[in-house]
């Protein structure tokens, strides 16, 4: 089975994240990049699919040169090879232009199943899997907490507010996963050393045979018009219990429309 796992390098959520004042996009140089947390689960699931059904796992990422660190992490976990989409023309992509570039790359790489995290911790739009499936003309199975492949069919358990749905589709397909799906492995030292020797293909905008107007900031349909630093958190309200603590707490909650 030809498994492609899409990963994204995101700013470490433990650090302070900033937007650039010039083009109002994320300042990726100012922060440490880490693999998007949900993508670690996607890599783990891709590796498990390979272990169960054979085949190959290809890592696909779009991002600046330093996103190579994220590729290396996925390769160290056990993926076989990688494709790194890197070009200044891709900078400033929104979800729509990202999905276009990735779909063009996937058309070139080929796949039976594409696995990805259901959202990234930076923009958190959570729409990429759907856009990708639409562009590729294949079924989308989202929010999976369990994935099974049987011949040419793929079945997932899709997490919902009320429990889960069983969703089945035929391959090829796009599957997005949630953190309930597995426990990602830590790379072993053997994996870390082997990652150095695994092939990483670098693709630029020209390799995508894409319509340049649909790529990067130029191709983005959404625009950050303005932004402001989040206001500091107001001090909390302390309710002292003098026999009427319960009533006071209820009053407070009612004033905030929680009850």
């Amino acid at each position, binding site marked *: 089975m030809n498994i492609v796992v899409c990963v994204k390098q995101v700013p470490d959520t433990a650090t302070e994240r900033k937007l650039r004042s010039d083009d109002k996009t994320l300042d990726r140089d100012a922060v440490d990049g880490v693999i998007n947390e949900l993508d670690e689960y996607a890599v783990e699931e891709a590796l498990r699919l390979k272990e169960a059904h054979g085949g190959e796992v290809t890592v696909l990422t779009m991002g600046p040169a330093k996103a190579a660190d994220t590729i*290396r992490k996925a390769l*160290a976990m056990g993926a076989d090879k990688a494709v790194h989409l890197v070009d200044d023309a891709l900078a400033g992509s929104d979800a729509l232009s990202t999905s276009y570039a990735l779909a063009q790359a996937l058309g070139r790489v080929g796949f039976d199943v594409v696995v990805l995290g259901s959202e990234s911790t930076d923009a958190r739009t959570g729409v990429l899997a759907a856009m990708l499936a639409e562009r590729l003309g294949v079924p989308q199975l989202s929010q999976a907490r369990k994935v099974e492949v049987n011949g040419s069919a793929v079945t997932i358990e899709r997490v919902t507010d009320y429990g889960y749905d069983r969703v089945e589709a035929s391959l090829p397909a796009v599957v997005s996963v949630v953190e309930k799906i597995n426990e990602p*492995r*830590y*790379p*072993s*030292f*053997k*994996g*870390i*050393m082997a990652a*150095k020797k695994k092939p990483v293909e670098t693709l630029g905008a020209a390799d995508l045979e894409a319509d340049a107007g649909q790529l990067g900031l130029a191709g983005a349909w959404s625009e950050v018009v303005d932004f402001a630093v989040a206001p500091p958190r107001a001090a909390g309200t302390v309710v002292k219990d003098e026999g009427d603590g319960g009533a006071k707490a209820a009053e407070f909650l009612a004033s905030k429309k929680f009850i």
Partner: protein
Amino acid sequence: MLSDEHLELRKTVSAFAREEVAPVIGDFYERGEFPYEIVRKMGAMGLFGLPIPEEHGGMGGDYFALCLALEELARVDSSVAITVEAAVSLGAMPILRFGTAEQKAEWLPRLASGEMLGAFGLTEPGGGTDVPGGMRTTAVLDGDEWVINGSKAFITNAGTDITGVVSVAALTDGLISTILVPTGTPGFSASKKYSKVGWSASDTRELSFNDCRVPRANLLGEFGRGYAQFLQTLDEGRVAIAALSVGLAQGCVDECVTYVRERHAFGHPIGHYQAIQFKVSDMEARAHTARLAYYHAAERMLAGLPFKKEAAIAKLVASNAAMDNARDGTQIFGGYGFMNEFPVGRFYRDAKILEIGEGTSEVQRMLIARELGLTA
């Protein structure tokens, strides 16, 4: 400078220690319970096989990789670090270095995967440093079998549910030889766990051998060469213990840097006061210099150069740094430092043994003096 692979390994083990060990180890420590699930996870990521070649089921790394991993583990907890240290440097390495092809094939794959733990029985209730003169355990050939009698003290990993084999140093015709004794061999038993001041989530036992019989083929390495074998094993082990000590020393710095920003006194975070800043700076300097000392010893070891003096120096200064940082770190935490629920309290209890195990500080000084040409 560390290679990319070593840096990546350090980052991975650091994440593992923070995410998998830190949240749960305090409870294991308090209960004196061996953390099997953490050991299983460390096995899955290959920590027990770091310096073991791939052909024997290991990771194909080097001894320095093991040291880096031990430092990162000990930054969070010493019980799990010593479990890996003893399993690899004392359990598996002597078999890798001195074992026959059959012995390696039988034991190394399971030891390297962490599925099985190995132990090394050298110290006795009557003496540790005083070998070979003070050794009492004997092994006598009877036909095709060794008959072992005696006891061993303070043996790490000797009595867990997954302990598989112990290398036992014993007197054979007046010379020391090492013999492999699988667990479950009649006449071999491990006592109940010691109650220890620190390292409470690690397994430490006294072992007894009572007409314990194993096949003649279980001799590890050459007959009568046991003393030379374990001197070599201990030189390496000292670098590993130095790495573990640096981890504890750095862990104290980590805890304090966070705490002194949060804890307020007299209108400021206590980190605002120079008395505290100077203490923390001294702690950082100790951890840093001790790290350089063990890096240097490891570099010489891997280059095949003599490293006995460098290993002794690294072990001496790193265990000092650990002890000093644990004392100062606990002092900075004040009353909270005396509570078991705070890591510095655990570090304080875990630090003392570092000046004792794998050669006391006095033994290190003796070795350094000898390397300087000074003899009694």
